[in-house]
C-alpha cells in the first residue's frame, strides 16, 4: 500500500465515531419515515433543526471537521505529523478527504431513508428535489469547519464559528443574491428553482467550499504550527 493509502486508512479509522454516528442518523430518519406517525410528527415539529438539510452539514462541519484541525494544533499532534518525511500537503489531503466523503455518503443515505415506504410525503418536506444544493451545503459547512479549525486552532471557537457561518448562509439571502446576479430571471427561492437555477445555486456553494479549502491548505502549510 502506498503511503497515501495507508494514511487515509489510518485517518478513516480515526473517524469510527462519526461513522457510527452517521449510521445511527440514517437509522433514526428511517425510523421516522417507516415508524409510527407520532415519530413523524415530532420530526416535523423540530422544523429546520431536525431537517437532514441542517443536521448533516452541522454534524460533519461543526462536529467533525472543525475539531479535527483545531485539535491537531491544541494537542500538538501537528508537530508529530509535520516532522515525518511525508509532505505537509500529502498528509493534509489524507487527513481531510475522508470527512467530506463520509458526510456526502451520510446525506445520500438519509435521502435513501426518506425514500422508504411510506415516507414519500415527508420526502417533499426534506429534499425538494434539490440534491446538488443539499450536497453543496454539506460540502460548504465541512470546508468551513476545516477552515475555522485551521485558523482558530482551538476546538470550541472553531465549532462555534462553523455553526454561526452555516446559519448566516442558511438564513440570510447571501447565496440567492449571488445566484440572482448570474441568472436574474430565476426565482431564487429554493423549491421553485428550475434545473438551471439549482445548478447555479449549487455551484456557488461548491465555489465557496473550494475557496475555504484553499484557505485551509494555505494556512495549514504556512502558518501552522504557530510557535
Amino acid at each position: 500500500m502506498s503511503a497515501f493509502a495507508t494514511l487515509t486508512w489510518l485517518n478513516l479509522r480515526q473517524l469510527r465515531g462519526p461513522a457510527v454516528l452517521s449510521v445511527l442518523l440514517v437509522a433514526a430518519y428511517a425510523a421516522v419515515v417507516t415508524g409510527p406517525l407520532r415519530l413523524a410528527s415530532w420530526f416535523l415539529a423540530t422544523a429546520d433543526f431536525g431537517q437532514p438539510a441542517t443536521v448533516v452539514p452541522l454534524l460533519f462541519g461543526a462536529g467533525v471537521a472543525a475539531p479535527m484541525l483545531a485539535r491537531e494544533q491544541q494537542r500538538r499532534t501537528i508537530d508529530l505529523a509535520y516532522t515525518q518525511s511525508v509532505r505537509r500537503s500529502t498528509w493534509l489531503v489524507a487527513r481531510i478527504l475522508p470527512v467530506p466523503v463520509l458526510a456526502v455518503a451520510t446525506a445520500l443515505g438519509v435521502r435513501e431513508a426518506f425514500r422508504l415506504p411510506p415516507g414519500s410525503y415527508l420526502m417533499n418536506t426534506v429534499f425538494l428535489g434539490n440534491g446538488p444544493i443539499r450536497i453543496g451545503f454539506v460540502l460548504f459547512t465541512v470546508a468551513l469547519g476545516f477552515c475555522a479549525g485551521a485558523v482558530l486552532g482551538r476546538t470550541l471557537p472553531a465549532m462555534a464559528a462553523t455553526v454561526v457561518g452555516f446559519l448566516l448562509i442558511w438564513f440570510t439571502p447571501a447565496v440567492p443574491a449571488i445566484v440572482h446576479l448570474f441568472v436574474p430571471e430565476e426565482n431564487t427561492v429554493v423549491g421553485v428553482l428550475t434545473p438551471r437555477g439549482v445548478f447555479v445555486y449549487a455551484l456557488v456553494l461548491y465555489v465557496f467550499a473550494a475557496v475555504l479549502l484553499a484557505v485551509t491548505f494555505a494556512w495549514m502549510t504556512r502558518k501552522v504550527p504557530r510557535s
Partner: protein
Amino acid sequence: MTATVEATGLGKRYGFRRWGLRDCSFAVPPGSVVALVGANGSGKSTLLRLVAGLTRPSEGVVRVGGAVPGRARDRIAYVGQTKPLYDGFTVAEMVRFGAATNPGFDRRGTTERLRGLGVPLDRSVGRISGGQRTQVAIALALGKRADVVLLDEPMADLDPLARPALLGELMATVEERGCTVILSSHVLTELTDVCDSLLLTNEGSLQVSGKIDDLVGGHRLLVGPAEVYAGGDRVGANPVVSARTTERQATVLVRWLAEPVDPRWAVHEVTLSDVVLGYLRSPAASSAPELVAV
C-alpha cells in the same frame, strides 16, 4: 548517513519585541550527543523546533546536512516536550503511522523494541501511562532512522530505571548509525555519562557551547577568604564567570587559563553541574569565543 547541524545568527522573535532566542551560532558535527540545558523559558524548545523545521527563524539560518530543515524532513526526527501522539490510535497503529509517513521506517525493529519495553501494542495510546507514552514517541523517532534526532525533555516522565535504559539505547543507536542526537534536559548528572557536547541557553541566547570535557577541564572553582576577592572580572588573569560571596568566604567560577592566582585561593576541579550552574547564575557572562565551535 551523517549530517551536521549548523546555525548561524539564529533568532526567533515572538510578536514584535520578545525574542525567544537570539544570535545563536553553533555547529554540531555528525555523531555527537549534545546536551541542551538552560533554565525554563530560556529558548531550549525554540531552538529544537527551529532545527526540526517546525518554526521559521526570524533571523539567521539553520541547516541540517546543508539543507534547510523543511527540505531535510526525512533526515530529522523530533519528539516534542508533550510527546504528542494520536490518542485514538493503538500503539501498533502509531507504529503503522510512522511506517506510512517515512520511507525508511524500521517497523519490525520498532515493534520489537516496544514489545521489549512491555508497552501493550493493542492498547490505545490515550490509555497507556505517561512513561510508556514517552517510550512510544521516542521509539517512533528512532524508528525513522533519521540522521539527526531531536528530543525535547525526553526523560521528564521516565522513572529512575527507565532513564539510564533510554540513554543506553540512544548511545547504541548513535554507535550503530552514527546519527546526531540533541536532547534537552534538566537532569545534569545523567547527561554527563552519555553526552559529549553541551549547548547552554540563557535568557534567549546561546551562552555556552563546547565539548563537555573541554568545559570541565577549562574551568576551576576558586574558594578563598572574602578579602581576596574584591569583585572584578578576573582573578589573576583568569576570567570570572560568576562569583558568590559571603561575609567570610568567596567562591568564584573562573575560566582556567592556568594563570597563577593569589596563594590564599584554594583551586578545585569542577563538575559539569558547577559549570552549568555558574553560567546560569550570571547570564551576562558571555560565552568564550574559543568555546563556540562544538
